[in-house]
């Protein structure tokens, strides 16, 4: 295999800075998939070789580094980005240079680029099931807290709309800049505890999310009574928050670490062998892992790094991901994903409470999701004693 040249691909995840916890896990998922592909003989006998840069969570670096990967390193396939702002930096670069860009993160929708394969959930895939669940299980008075950027604002718009259709009410809405710490959340935490909403919908991301959950706990908030529900808070962040402050809180996502399936067990075993622990495995990590496998299958079929031909091969492609089967929607480059709702138990582990029976079609341009859409009803997951 060493005689032949390897397939070079670009990787852009921050391993330092505010979003490094989650991006490190996405990088790990990417690298693990590459290892598996190479260990199985590579693609058409040639191994995949990642060229990875660290944008340090600085938005402008993503665009510059994408440019460098394409121009200097001559890559045509790029994997990376967590925040929408960083994706928006990379987008014009990959369109101008015609590279294929794999984005393994949930985001706010309302975008389509022929150069992007979107691997994370759009609001219709998680928000509607979560809103249904919250109103059914807790009540209709919801408080919104978010980081101040495009994703929280758009996902709150969707959530507000879904809640209203179900007779729910948003009793407060606050946004915080990225410089806010635990201290900075103290006031809103007190306010929430005083107002006694039925649940909190949080779109606070990154390090801030850990601070917010802790501040809520410090103010006397109890997730078992009034939970914080989120689309982004994952296993890595729950671990950082600690079981005491995290217990009872809820996350809706396509993937959770404790899914019991052969594909997931195999994934976790390999992850543990490579990185020594599965502590930071998250849905974004799983999406990054799955996207690399989808790419490798397409490359196997096409046999060259031409962005257009790879794109063609990827449309409609399926993969038995750790979350279950996923499929790239040929209509919009987004991905059919599973939808699950999980709650943190006393040990700080997510327990999946509800799920949808089958993968949901992504609908990135959905302005008003319908709460009564039968497709978005979740079903209770039977708990087996472990």
């Amino acid at each position, binding site marked *: 295999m060493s005689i032949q040249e390897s397939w070079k691909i670009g990787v852009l995840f921050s391993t330092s800075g505010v979003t490094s916890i989650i991006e490190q896990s996405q990088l790990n998922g990417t690298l693990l998939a590459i290892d598996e592909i190479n260990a199985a003989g590579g693609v058409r006998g040639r191994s995949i070789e990642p060229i990875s840069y660290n944008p340090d969570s600085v938005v402008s670096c993503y665009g510059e580094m994408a440019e460098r990967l394409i121009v200097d390193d001559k890559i045509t396939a790029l994997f990376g980005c967590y925040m929408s702002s960083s994706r928006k930096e990379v987008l014009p670069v990959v*369109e101008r240079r015609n590279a294929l860009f794999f984005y393994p993160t949930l985001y706010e929708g309302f975008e*389509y*680029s*022929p150069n992007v394969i979107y691997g994370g959930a759009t609001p219709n895939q998680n928000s509607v099931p979560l809103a249904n669940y919250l109103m059914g299980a807790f009540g209709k008075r919801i408080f919104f807290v978010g980081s101040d950027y495009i994703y929280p604002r758009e996902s709150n718009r969707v959530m507000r709309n879904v809640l209203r259709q179900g007779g729910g009410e948003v009793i407060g809405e606050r946004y915080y800049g990225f410089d806010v710490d635990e201290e900075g959340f103290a006031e809103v935490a007190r306010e929430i505890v005083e107002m006694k909403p039925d649940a909190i919908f949080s779109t606070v991301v990154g390090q801030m999310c850990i601070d917010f959950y802790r501040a809520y706990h410090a103010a006397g908030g109890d997730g078992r009574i009034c939970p914080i529900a989120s689309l982004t808070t994952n296993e890595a962040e729950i671990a950082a928050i600690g079981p005491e402050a995290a217990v009872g809180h809820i996350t809706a996502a396509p993937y959770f670490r404790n899914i019991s399936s052969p594909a997931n067990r195999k994934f976790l075993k390999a992850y543990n062998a490579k990185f020594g622990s599965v502590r930071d495995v998250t849905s974004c990590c799983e999406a990054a892992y799955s996207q690399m496998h989808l790419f490798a299958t397409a490359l196997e079929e096409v046999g060259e790094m031409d962005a257009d031909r790879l794109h063609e091969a990827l449309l409609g492609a399926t993969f038995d991901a750790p979350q279950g089967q996923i499929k790239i929607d040929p*209509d*919009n480059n987004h991905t059919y994903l599973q939808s699950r709702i999980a709650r943190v138990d006393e040990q700080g582990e997510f327990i999946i409470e509800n799920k949808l029976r089958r993968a949901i079609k992504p609908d*990135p*341009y*959905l*302005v008003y999701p319908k709460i009564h859409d039968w497709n978005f009803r979740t079903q209770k997951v039977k708990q087996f004693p472990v």
Partner: protein
Amino acid sequence: MSDFIQDLRDLNTLVVHQRDRSGDDLLQQVNRIGCNCENAWPIPVTLQKKFDLVFIDVTDQPVDRIKSFLNSAGGEPPTVIALIGYENPSTLESIFEIGAHAMLTKPVRATGVLGSMLMARRYWAEQLRFRKDLAKMRDRVVNLQKINDAKFILMRHHGIDDQEAYGVIRKQAMSKRTTTLEIAQSIINADGILRNIGNS
């Protein structure tokens, strides 16, 4: 949230464009956005009434033909988004001539289609409202003028003041169960007839 965004998926759209790369990309994007979408090419003679929004390729197409097509549905013309291949003054002039509400340049990219649809819808709705308001205002000015004329006639003949004259018109309108405008019109007509008798 504005109605334009809310009602977006209810729009019936027609893409008048060749099935080439730009045409396909546009059709797919409109589908992704979630609107009902049909395609036609070359420019049909008549436009079906059901279409709310029409994308039309104006590159190298005779303006008269486009105009007659857009006006062929009868009633209010639809929202129009022009697709142009060349951004030169004569092409841009033709966009004004056909009364487009927004434009997209070719090659069409997915980004920008949603925005231009919304801007076009808003501009179209605003134009419609302005036209209606304007017609209403025009009527009102004419009506006011008529009532004033009638008042002057009454004032002249009966030596009463402005307010009393209006009172007479209003009272007549109420007792005959009609509008002040109609009474004013009758007074003007009667005055004309009487004056003509005097002259002949």
